[in-house]
């Protein structure tokens, strides 16, 4: 009996660990296409950890809100609804796991990276930074 329990736990563990990467890295054609574009612009392999660091980092600015971060409007949890710091308008969750419309349009992603990197960091993001943040956003899940 004990042996059988052990075996089934092992089997379940094996199945879960094999299928997890598949679940997390669900095929996102838009993201893959963009990663290719960023590669052509000089980016190497996307680094999720660095993406997370960039997303949560606080940048100092001279404007109305001197301490700025992606989390200022989007919050620390990308599966939750955010809020525009100035207008108070709701921002739908960034993580595709919570909002399937996210990361489905290259045009939109380009537009918001341009605007929001400039507002938050005071400059445009590099191809590498965009690649890193993209995979970070893509892989945020609520489980």
């Amino acid at each position: 009996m004990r042996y059988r329990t052990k075996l089934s736990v092992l089997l379940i563990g094996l199945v879960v660990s094999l299928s997890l990467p598949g679940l997390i890295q669900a095929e996102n054609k838009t993201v893959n296409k963009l990663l290719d574009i960023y590669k052509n612009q000089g980016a190497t392999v996307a680094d999720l950890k660095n993406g997370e660091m960039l997303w949560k980092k606080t940048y100092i600015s001279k404007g109305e809100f001197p301490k700025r971060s992606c989390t200022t409007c989007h919050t620390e949890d990308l599966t939750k609804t955010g809020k525009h710091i100035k207008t108070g308008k709701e921002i739908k969750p960034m993580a595709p796991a919570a909002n399937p419309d996210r990361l489905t349009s290259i045009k939109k992603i380009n537009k918001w990276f341009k605007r929001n990197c400039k507002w938050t960091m005071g400059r445009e993001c590099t191809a590498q930074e965009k690649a890193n943040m993209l995979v970070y956003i893509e892989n945020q899940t609520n489980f």
Partner: protein
Amino acid sequence: MKGLLAISSIVFTIGVLSIPVVWSDDDFNWKETGKYRDKSSGVAAITNPLYKEECGSCHMSYPPGLLPERSWVRMMSGLEDHFGDNAELDSETARSIEQFLLKNSADKSEYKRSRKFNQSIKSDVTPLRISELSYFKHEHDEIPKRMVTGNAEVKSFSQCNACHTKAEQGKFNEHDINIPGFGKWDD
């Protein structure tokens, strides 16, 4: 031949006589009256989906009939610093939105409130903030600050739709007002 002429003249007469009846059809008249009522009180509703999508993702979509053409031109030329936020658009989208704004600006509108907004602006200035126009101030001068800037659910006079429940439809009538935490507003 004579008979045929008589019949066709009768048919013709009936046709001519029925024109006013068809013309004054109930449905037709109601629509016109509704239109007239809207124009006499509000500003034009927003009909452009691109404008709603692009400008309405960060804030309420302000009806273009709240500012004159020269203000919208200035607004669209400074999107990189849009009241402190970056709201840059690609040139194609920007051009299309600007066309919509200019076509429906306050100085070109037949709506009563648009005319009043426009008339309250001195000809030598190009304002960007609707809430700083004299007509806007005149209309809001009796409202205590605690209901707006001191009200966590409103925060600022820029959030028209916090109290004007039909603002995005261009309706600013008193009976559509609902101030969060305070309710209806009666002058």
